[in-house]
C-alpha cells in the first residue's frame, strides 16, 4: 500500500492567528461598552469607519501585492488595528481623520513593510501619530464623560453621526460647549500654570485616581487584559514592564516632589496606560521577542510614557513611546538572546 509522505512532527498547533486576534477583540468588548456609556455613541462610528477602511486597505494591498485578499482578512489583524485606533480617538472625530489613520496604519505601516508579521511599527499607533500631527485640532476634542455633576452638553446619536460624517456640530453648539480637556491635559496645563497637583485634582474631570469615566474604562480594559493573560494570548512580561517603567518613576517623583508630580494612580488611570500595557505594547509582531527582551521593551515604553507626560508637549505619550521602542526592538532582540542550553554564557553573548 502507498502512503502520502509528510514531515515530522505530524501534529499541528490547535491555536491559530485568527483565534488569537479574536481573543484580543473579545477582551476589548467590556471596555468598548464602557466607552460608549461614558463618551457617547461616537466610539461606535469611529470603530465602523476605522474597521471599514482598515479592511478595505488590507484587501487592496493584498490585491496589489498579488496575493489572495481573503487570507489576510481571515486573520482579523486589520480589525484589531481598527479597534485599537478607535480607542485612541475622541468620540467626536470626523470620518476622514479616522480613515486617514486606519489607511496609513494598514497600508503604509503594515503592508509596505511586507504585511502581517513583517511590520516594524505598530500599525494602530503609526496611524494614530500620523493623524495626531496632521489633524491636531480634532484629536484634542474629547467630550466630557457623562457623569451627572459635570456641566456637559450631550449630543444625540444623530448629532454625533452628523459630526462624524461632516465635521459640523449642530448650529446651536460650539466646540467649547461639548468638549473638555482630558485629565492629562488638565494636569499638564495646571502644572505649567504653577498649580500644585493637589489643586489640579479638584477639577471635576479628575476622579479618585485618574480621569472620571476613564478610570472605569481602565478597569474594564484591565479585566480584558487579565483575561488575555489567563488565556495565554499575551504574556506578563510586557504589561509588567510597562507598569514598572511608568509607575516606578511616578512613585519616586511623588515621594520626592509631591507638589508637581501626579502619583502612580493618576498615571495608571489617566490616558491610555492600561490599554497600552495589555493591548498595544503586546502586539507581538512589533514587540521584542525573547522574554527578557519583552520586559525591557515594556519597561522602555512605560518610562517613555512617563517622560513624555512630564516633559513633552503632548499630554499623553503612549503612541510615541510605542513607536520609539519599536525602533529599539532589533537591538533589544540581539542583546537579550537567552543562553542556549549547553553553551556557556560568554559564548552565547559573543555568538
Amino acid at each position: 500500500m502507498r502512503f502520502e509522505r509528510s514531515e515530522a512532527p505530524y501534529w499541528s498547533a490547535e491555536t491559530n492567528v485568527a483565534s488569537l486576534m479574536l481573543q484580543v477583540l473579545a477582551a476589548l468588548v467590556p471596555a468598548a461598552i464602557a466607552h460608549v456609556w461614558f463618551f457617547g455613541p461616537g466610539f461606535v462610528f469611529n470603530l465602523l469607519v476605522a474597521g471599514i477602511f482598515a479592511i478595505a486597505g488590507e484587501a487592496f494591498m493584498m490585491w496589489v501585492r498579488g496575493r489572495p485578499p481573503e487570507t489576510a482578512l481571515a486573520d482579523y489583524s486589520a480589525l484589531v488595528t481598527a479597534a485599537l485606533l478607535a480607542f485612541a480617538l475622541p468620540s467626536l472625530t470626523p470620518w476622514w481623520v479616522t480613515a486617514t489613520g486606519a489607511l496609513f496604519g494598514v497600508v503604509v505601516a503594515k503592508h509596505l513593510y511586507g504585511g502581517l508579521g513583517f511590520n516594524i511599527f505598530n500599525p494602530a499607533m503609526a496611524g494614530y501619530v500620523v493623524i495626531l500631527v496632521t489633524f491636531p485640532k480634532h484629536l484634542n476634542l474629547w467630550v466630557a464623560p457623562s457623569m451627572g455633576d459635570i456641566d456637559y452638553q450631550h449630543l444625540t446619536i444623530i448629532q454625533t453621526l452628523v459630526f462624524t460624517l461632516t465635521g459640523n456640530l449642530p448650529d446651536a453648539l460650539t466646540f467649547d460647549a461639548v468638549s473638555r480637556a482630558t485629565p492629562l491635559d488638565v494636569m499638564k496645563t495646571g502644572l505649567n500654570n504653577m498649580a500644585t497637583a493637589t489643586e489640579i485634582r479638584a477639577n471635576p474631570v479628575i476622579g479618585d485616581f485618574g480621569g472620571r469615566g476613564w478610570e472605569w474604562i481602565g478597569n474594564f480594559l484591565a479585566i480584558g487584559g487579565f483575561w488575555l493573560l489567563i488565556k495565554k494570548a499575551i504574556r506578563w512580561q510586557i504589561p509588567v514592564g510597562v507598569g514598572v517603567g511608568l509607575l516606578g518613576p511616578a512613585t519616586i517623583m511623588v515621594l520626592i516632589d509631591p507638589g508637581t508630580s501626579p502619583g502612580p494612580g493618576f498615571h495608571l488611570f489617566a490616558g491610555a496606560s492600561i490599554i497600552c500595557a495589555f493591548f498595544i505594547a503586546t502586539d507581538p509582531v512589533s514587540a521584542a521577542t525573547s522574554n527578557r527582551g519583552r520586559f525591557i521593551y515594556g519597561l522602555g515604553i512605560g518610562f517613555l510614557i512617563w517622560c513624555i507626560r512630564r516633559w513633552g508637549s503632548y499630554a499623553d505619550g503612549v503612541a510615541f513611546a510605542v513607536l520609539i521602542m519599536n525602533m529599539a526592538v532589533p537591538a533589544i532582540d540581539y542583546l537579550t538572546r537567552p543562553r542556549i542550553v549547553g553553551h556557556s554564557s560568554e559564548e552565547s553573548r559573543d555568538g
Partner: protein
Amino acid sequence: MSAPTYDLGKLHGGLRLQSHKAVSTAQPIREVPVPSQLILPIEQHVGQPAQPVVGVGERVLKGQLIAEPDGELGAPVHASSSGTIVAIERWPVSRRNGDKAPCIVIECDGKDEALQTTPVEDYTSRTPAELLLRILDGGIVGLGGAVFPTAQKLMQARTCDTEFLILNGVECEPYISCDDVLMRERAPEILSGAQVLMHALQVETCFVVVESDKPEAIARLGEVLAELNDKRIVLKLVPTIYPSGGEDQLVQLVTNREVPSGGLPTDVGCIVQNVGTAAAVHDWILRNEPLISRVTTITGDGVASPVNIRARIGTPIEEVIQFAGGYTDKVRHLIIGGPMTGKSVTTDEVPLVKASNCVLAVSARPFAGNELPCIRCGDCAAVCPVQLLPQQLHWYSCADDEVKLREFGLTDCIECGCCDLVCPSHIPLTADFRTAKGRIREMADEKARAERARQRFEARNQRLVQEQEERDAELARQKESAKSAGPAAIAEILKRKQQAQEDDST
C-alpha cells in the same frame, strides 16, 4: 527497595502532550510469527553499512552473522530466522522514507532453526574490554530510535570519566509504548542488562529513569529492584513532559548537568542507554541471542487494533499491520517512529528494523499547508527545550543567512518538534530547520571540497615546478659533464644524434 527519588535538574520549556498510549498498552506484548520472507537492510545503525558475508542461495540459521561491521561505527546484522538467502538487492527502507537501500532477503523455511552456540560464560569473569568486544558481536544498537552502535558508545564512555549509567525508560513521545510494556514484562532482564553494562563500563551508579505516567512499569521495576537488592541501581521518576527522554535532556533532568553544545553526555560523566538496549544486552550476554527481534508499538487511528508486538527484525511492516487488524479507512500516512520525530514512509513494503520503535498509521493531519507568516508571538521560544529562539531562526532560515543561523544555535536544535505544535501560524519550523541544517552541512562539504581541490592544485603546481627544476639541473649537469669529457665525447654525441635523425627519417 530503593525509594523513587525525584529529579534535580529542570528542563526549559517542553510540552505536556496527549499521550495516546493507553490504546496500545491494554494487552501484553504479542509475538508476531516468523514471516515467509525477511528483509534485512545492511544499514540499520548510524555508521557505515555492514558488509554481507553470505551469498545468494546460501542457507542460514537463526542468529547467524550475515553482514559484518565495516568502519569505526559499524554493527553486524544477523539472520532473524533460518532459511535461504534469495537476494541481496535494493529494497524500500524506512530510514530513506520508503526509497530503496541494499538489503539481504531471506526466504524463511519456517523451521526457525537456531545456530549452535557456545555455552554461556559468566560475564563477571571477563574483563570490561572483552565484554565490550562481545557486545559488538551481538549487533546491538540503541533501540530508542537513534541506533548508535552500543559497543562503540560504551567504548567511548570507557575512555572518559564516566560516573553514571542512565537507563532511559522515559519514552516521552506520544503513542509509543514499547518501552513501557517492556519494563512491565521484562524488568528482570532490563536490570540484569544494566548490571552487565555497569560491569563493562566499571561504573558504580545506575539511574533507571521512568516518566511518572507509567505507574505499572515503575511498580514492577521497584519489585524487581527489591529482589535484586543491588544498591548501585536507583529508580528515578521524571515528570511527564516531552521531550524529557531526549538524551541530553535526560542527563540535564537527572544530574542537573548540561551536555555542552556539540559534545556528548560523557563530557559530563554520563552515558545513556535505552531500557530496550539493556534487555538486548542481557539477551546477548546471558543467553547468546543476538539482536534479531524487538518490541514495537503498532498504533494510530489508521490501524484497527493497536497493540505492542515482538517481531523479528526484517519482518515487512505490511505483515505487522495485518497482525494488528489491518488498516482503517482513515489511514493516510504511515510513520515509522513517533508522531514528533518519526519518519514518514511512502510504502508499507519497508521492513521492521532495529530502529523501529513504533509504527504509526494516522489519518490526514489538520492545518497541513495552511501556513501564515510568523507573528513573533514567541510561543515556540517558550517551549524550546534547548532555549533557542525558533522565531528568529525561522527568519534567518527564510533569509538563508548561514552566519546568523549558526549564531542563533541552529546546530543545537534537537528537532523535537515542540515549536511546530504551538505555532499559531502553523509554520513547519522543524522541517525548515532540518532543511537549513542540511544546507549548512552541504555548504561545509562544498567548502571542504573546494579546499581539497585547492590543495591538490597547489601540490600539482609545486610538483611541476620541482620537476622543471630537476630537469634543468640534470641538463646543466649533462652539459657540464660533456664539457669536461672533451672533444672526443662531443663528437660521439653528435654522431649519435645524427644517427637518431636518420632513423627517424627512414
